[in-house]
């Protein structure tokens, strides 16, 4: 499976990874070998196999609609790089 350098750059952007210092061709090659490895699965005939949604043999685990205590706001904001008394502060986001 061939990946162009544009593909790699787009993936990096979507994942918010800064790869500007890295050789894109090299990354593309590594990604390709991972994809090729997974691609081996497509050799199997899965025509009549129901898609698997979980590897576990259980489902239907849920809880009742009950309110539990939240964290103290001080603790919520404790690890934030920037905050005021009430809110996280982040670089401007618009739209």
């Amino acid at each position, binding site marked *: 499976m061939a990946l162009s350098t544009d593909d790699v750059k787009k993936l990096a952007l*979507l*994942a*918010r990874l800064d790869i500007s210092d890295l050789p894109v061709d090299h990354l593309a090659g590594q990604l390709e070998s991972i994809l090729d490895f997974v691609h081996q699965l497509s050799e199997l005939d899965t025509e009549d196999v129901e898609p698997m*949604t*979980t590897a*576990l043999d*259980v*489902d*239907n*685990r*849920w*809880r*009742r*609609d*009950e*309110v*539990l*205590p*939240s*964290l103290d*706001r001080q603790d*919520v*904001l404790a690890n934030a790089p*920037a905050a*005021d008394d*009430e*809110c*996280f*502060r*982040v*670089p*401007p*986001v*618009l*739209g």
Partner: protein
Amino acid sequence: MSQYPFTTVIGLEVHVQLKTASKLFCGCSTEFGAPPNTHVCPLCLGLPGALPVINEKALELSALAGLALHCDLPPVTKWDRKQYFYPDLPKGYQTSQFDMPICADGFLEIEDPADANQTVRIGIIRAHLEEDAGKSMHDEVAGRADSRIDLNRCGTPLLEIVSEPDLRTAEQCVAFLTKLREMMVHLGVSDCEMQEGSLRVDANVNLHIDRNGEVIATPIVEIKNMNSFRNVAAALAYEVDRQYEEWETKGHTIKTHGKRTFGWDDGKQVTYPQREKEESADYRYFPCPDLLPVRLTEAQREKVRSMFTELPQQARERLQSQYDVTAYDADVIVSAGPEMLAYYDSVATACGDGKRASSWVQQDVMRSIKEQGISVDQFAISADQLAALIQCIIAGELANNRARDVFEHMLDKGVAMDQAMKDLGIEQVDDSEIESLVADLLSKNPRVVDDVKGGNAKAVGALIGQARKANPNANPQQVRELALKMIEQM
């Protein structure tokens, strides 16, 4: 302005916030208006190791909405991660449902605003559960360049209802939204308060222009930020003109331009481009490994069916046939919401007179709760108390005006009916007491007796004033009937 005829094609995506006490995957409260970042836990923060657990009420309310929209409830539904990076989404993904939504393939029928006799069926592609993001506030006023983030809303359950592109006019969209909202509020699925963001609407719109038999589609635009039904109508009207002009002057079509996202500027009354729309693949959906698939059990399906009692239109019809009230009265009561309908049902059933109950509920109860700015659930006079009061009127023990005094007194002083009647000096007057009072009056008023015997039954009215003077709680009707009966026997 337009030269060629065209069809407007609109599909709506409606997010309703489900009426649960806690969030979709954690126990934090969903209460609106709490101080910022006070309903936040490790899960809301996306801290490593925090794991989600599904809120069963969110499943039930979604299934209930699905039933109301004639949807299938597939045997299995599952959760997927929709990846994108935004400061109000600390996990870096939104837990949503991609290929196996909880509700699929339904419809909602509306009256066509252009022709009241015409019903239009609007397809519902799907309705899926997802979590809400937090809120970003842009602090430009304070002169600071950064944004403030409140994560209280993060993780609140949303049901996203996606219609087929079956809508053709802004008016149809408003009719669709009005009916959908009324249904969801009535069934207790959501409060649908646009001001509080518990109902949000996005519209996908484009035009199919007929240029001498050749149909040309304009690029699809998704409009966001429409925070009232009026804005939905205004934004769509504006966008239709804008797209036609864009095609006319720049030649943009669906083949030359991809889907874009526009916002609605309420102040300027224009739509404006926000960003190029991501392709679905850009979100890199994959099944959420932290959550198990859901198979609604037969017991849950049964429970949801039992919650699905009647729709607003059915309630209107029922009130008319069950209590013999007018279509107008039924509409006022049902439109006031499910709590008011339940209150009215209790009063009407308990007092046995639906018409009187309707007039008291509409005039006195609705006015009082409006004055007090409360909901009927918080109203001081219970349905049983009001029914008892109305029964006093039916039994002839209280005149309407006097009953209204009692009602006001109950509200003012916060007392029960018996106490209010005592405070106002209204006591049940003993029958024998009334009898001796009337006998006494008849002996003092021989002319009234003669007049009545002479065929003028109205003359008995002269006694009523005197009776009330002697005993203010003497019931006028009882005095009249008793006097006529005694004269007849004389």
